[in-house]
């Protein structure tokens, strides 16, 4: 298939393709981080993850409408304000859900799957009632659209760069929170040994609530970021949930580094295969590979030694 092209064209395309892979990688990390925190640290299978993302997207939508009509001058930075609001909105909803639902189910992890799935249906219908069944269009600041042309063929999508930057920032923040803060130390203590953590005076319920809220908040940020590249509708969250679980399970549920590594592997594999094969075939092969590796290594790529 490459016979008709010059070397410089090929070089450009491979550069573009590499960039596409990196963008996909960022998207996967952003989707999966929140879930990895909740699933990995708390053992809760949160099927409503996608709906928490979409809450973030709707907050962004409301925000962009608000700024457009009342303060057009602030429009260029409206997106970042929206993102912060999205974090708090999804985080707050997450904490409410934890208080009202999840905390009764910690001893029954499989039931969390059903309960959160039900929750996802409730949220979807709530969005449909509040925002209407149709997808909404989020108006983005002018400067976030379009691309930076480097050469004739190489054009770098600006929204791709922004997604990468956001992912980097969020990942760094999560790293600092989980591994460099007192809160993170408590979370890790609770994960490693709940009774012992309680015995030394850690309020495990409070830690649980904030961990769940943090995971959901990050989902909200992801949803907010995805208004740049995807759709915002009541059931858009469903588009992400399968890939998200794939990344988290493949990476090894308890390891955040595993999540990042698995996102990288899957995204590169998929975007490379998409280039050489058709889209549906690429997906099939990616899934097959993941299933194959999980058969050899059921615990995922990375494992954290945990005393249960």
């Amino acid at each position, binding site marked *: 298939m490459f016979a008709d092209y010059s070397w410089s064209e090929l070089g450009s395309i491979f550069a*573009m393709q590499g960039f596409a892979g990196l963008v996909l990688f960022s998207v996967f990390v952003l989707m999966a981080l929140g879930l990895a925190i909740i699933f990995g640290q708390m053992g809760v299978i949160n099927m409503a993850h996608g709906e928490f993302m979409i809450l973030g997207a709707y907050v962004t939508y409301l925000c962009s409408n608000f700024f457009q009509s009342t303060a057009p001058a602030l429009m260029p930075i409206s997106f970042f304000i929206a993102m912060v609001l999205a974090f708090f909105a999804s985080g707050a909803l997450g904490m409410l859900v934890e208080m009202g639902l999840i905390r009764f189910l910690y001893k029954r992890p499989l039931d969390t799957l059903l309960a959160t799935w039900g929750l996802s249906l409730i949220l979807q219908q709530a969005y449909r009632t509040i925002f209407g069944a149709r997808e909404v269009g989020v108006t983005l600041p002018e400067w976030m659209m379009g691309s930076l042309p480097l050469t004739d063929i190489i054009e770098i999508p600006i929204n791709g760069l922004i997604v990468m930057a956001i992912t980097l920032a969020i990942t760094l923040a999560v790293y600092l929170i989980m591994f460099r803060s007192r809160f993170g130390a408590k979370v890790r203590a609770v994960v490693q040994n709940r009774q012992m953590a309680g015995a030394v005076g850690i309020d495990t319920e409070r830690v649980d609530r904030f961990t769940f809220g943090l995971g959901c908040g990050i989902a909200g940020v992801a949803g907010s970021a995805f208004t740049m590249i995807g759709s915002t509708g009541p059931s858009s969250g469903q588009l992400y949930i399968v890939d998200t679980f794939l990344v988290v399970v493949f990476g090894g549920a308890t390891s955040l580094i595993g999540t990042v590594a698995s996102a990288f592997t899957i995204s590169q594999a998929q975007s490379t295969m998409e280039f050489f094969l058709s889209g*549906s075939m690429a997906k099939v092969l990616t899934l097959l590979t993941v299933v194959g590796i999980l058969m050899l290594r059921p615990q995922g790529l990375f494992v954290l030694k945990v005393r249960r």
Partner: protein
Amino acid sequence: MQTDKNGAAPRSMQRRKLMIGAAALALGMAAMPRLGLAQTPPTSEVNTTGLAVTDDTVKVGILHSITGTMAISETGSVQAEKLAIKQINDMGGVLGRKIEFTQEDGASDWPTFAEKAKKLLVEDKVAAVFGCWTSASRKAVLPVFEQYNGMLYYPTFYEGLEESPNVIYTGQEATQQILAGLDWVAKEKGAKSFYLLGSDYIWPRTSNKIARKHIEDHLGLKVVGEEYYPLGHTQFNSVINKIKLRKPDVIYAIVVGGSNVAFYKQLKAAGIDMTKEKPLLMTISVTEDEIRGIGGENIEGAYATMKYFQSLDNDNNKAFVKAFKDMWGQDIVIGDVTQAAYLGPWLWKAAVEKAGSFDIDKIKEASPGIELTTAPEGYVRIHENHHLWSKTRVGHAKADGQYEVVYETKELMEPDPFPEGYQ
């Protein structure tokens, strides 16, 4: 479930004003033979098979998804059908009987569609059903309609390869939507090479198959790529790179649902400016409804082939758009399928009046040849194969989310659900 004698609950407070507007519109639609209340034939004559018809009412069903994934698309159809029913009632109903409707929710789930269809036909004994959107839901209800002998008015443009005496297809089948558009882009835009792209299920695949045959065998041009992505796919950067490498003149896109939004946003972000038409983008899956989700600025410059655009400049359409907005809100947009759904109740009314009966078998027989001069898209006529003769139009997307009609076929396109040489 919801039954509403008046047709629907109007959104605005100006109900009276709205009724007057609708009545005025109804007068405008009086081109059809008008059977007033004076002419009400006895129920025993017009209903010999035990349908839900009384001396002053007739019950019909509306069967769409109002919850679940498909609600996004089907909402417009429900609104259009309710508007048509209300307008018909304001004109005096059908054979002197007011239409009442029973609405059921297919919930985006195909077995539910079949179950609800059976309920409408067997329990409610409705005289006609306006409903379904996806081909999957239509395929699910088809055996039910044939077994219990019901009448379905199906609004969506679809892949063809089907013809049932129990269904009137008010949308266009694939050849009606595709061929004229391809001819136009080859002739007017000098397109030589095409890249076919779609979501991975029956409609895009069948449509692209027809498109490929037409491009290669009839136009003698080249297809440089053909690709499908799973429904709900949100990452199109790789295929966009491939398109850049192959440099087609036309990207022929049949992407649907949430993927649509992702595709157009990423296309624009990757520096493919559709207003420059290098490459030119042509789609058969984006109506004004979808543009609301995509954002007009992201799809500006693309071409769509449909039979109806909200911007169509004729008196029928102006009245229709006004009535629709008065009923459902001023900021609403109307897509191709919404208009096709609007035709359903009117075509059924015409068939009942021609047959002089609500009996399903008589309607089936009376349907072919029925004309509608009041359709927003212009004149339409039912073909022997229960599809509609209608024109194909090409629209050019503008930043405000509307299409500007740049071409329409001179003649009505004949519906051909089983096109020879295209399979």
